[in-house]
């Protein structure tokens, strides 16, 4: 290449990766939100497809099995001394997650009000509720594996595919909750330490972390409906 490439208006264009980025971007912004928020939304969209694949494959194996599907309502029943209450553990987990979504929404609001103390404590509360959720899930897994003999390849209560679907779907969701707890704590302590004050006092990061957290709750809504209630 003997001479530098020029745009129609006559300005010299950069070469190499910088040129690739500039050419593709055309110096235009498509979505008028902070780039971190746009990228979080796009990540969540891709995550939507991953969870959809899990749920659709669960649907496929459940339709195709000739064995009866375990009675989910009974499998997840829990007894507090008296008669077992159907699906009660999952109901409690659902309420814990919804509560955490509420505290997260309030944290985002307080973040924009630049109330760092309230933002910090609300985010810590959200993370604590998330950790509670994961703890209850660990209890649920233990109960299913140890007491009920559920394995990815079979279980005494019905179709073998129940185990693999259950471990895959709830395991992947639990992993998302665990990652979210760490993410929230990191952002919360940075809010507390004044890390964002040095960066212009911008608390959009709280909203971006909140998007991730609400998404985890959103996925649970679908898992609850299709796996536990259907």
């Amino acid at each position, binding site marked *: 290449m003997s001479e530098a490439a020029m745009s129609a208006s006559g300005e010299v264009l950069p070469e190499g990766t910088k040129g690739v980025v500039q050419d593709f971007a055309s110096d235009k912004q498509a979505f008028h939100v902070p780039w971190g928020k746009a990228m979080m939304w796009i990540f969540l969209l891709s995550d*939507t497809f991953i969870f959809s694949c899990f749920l659709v494959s669960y649907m496929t194996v459940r339709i195709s099995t000739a064995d009866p599907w375990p009675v989910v*309502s009974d499998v997840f029943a829990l007894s507090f001394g008296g008669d077992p209450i159907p699906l009660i553990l999952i109901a409690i987990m659902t309420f814990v997650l919804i509560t955490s979504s509420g505290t997260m929404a309030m944290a985002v609001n307080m973040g924009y009000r630049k109330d760092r103390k309230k933002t910090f404590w609300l985010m810590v509360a959200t993370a604590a509720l998330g950790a509670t959720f994961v703890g209850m899930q660990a209890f649920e897994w233990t109960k299913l594996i140890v007491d009920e003999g559920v394995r990815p390849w079979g279980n005494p209560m019905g179709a073998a595919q129940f185990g693999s679907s259950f471990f895959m779907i709830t395991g992947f969701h639990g992993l998302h909750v665990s990652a979210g707890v760490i993410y929230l704590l990191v952002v919360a302590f940075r809010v507390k330490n004044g890390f964002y004050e040095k960066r212009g006092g911008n608390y959009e990061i709280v909203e971006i972390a909140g998007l991730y957290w609400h998404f985890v709750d959103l996925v649970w809504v679908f898992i609850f409906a299709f796996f*536990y209630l259907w």
Partner: protein
Amino acid sequence: MAQEGQQHPIAIYLWIWGLLFVVSFFSYMVDYLQLQGYLRWSLILIFMFLKAGFIIAIFMHMKWERLALQLAILVPPVVILVLIGLMALEGEYTFLTRIEFFGESDFVPSTPHH
């Protein structure tokens, strides 16, 4: 609005929070009252979409974003309906083939112990 961040009155979050609890309670009741068949399935779906809608629109602020972002995020998942349709057909075919060649299931389920 979008430039200066999403700032909304606290009341709206508290309302949606409360509604999510109520709707979750209803969806749990679907199981608790042992509703069956199409009534069960349609109620599950109604409550599911209500909750998902509240979370996306209010908690995730999608209601206040510009239409371009709303479309970019909410339209692509619609193609999953095609996958659901194809896989349901595939599942039915596998099921019928299993019944045809292996016969009805002789699995005797045991009840879970609590």
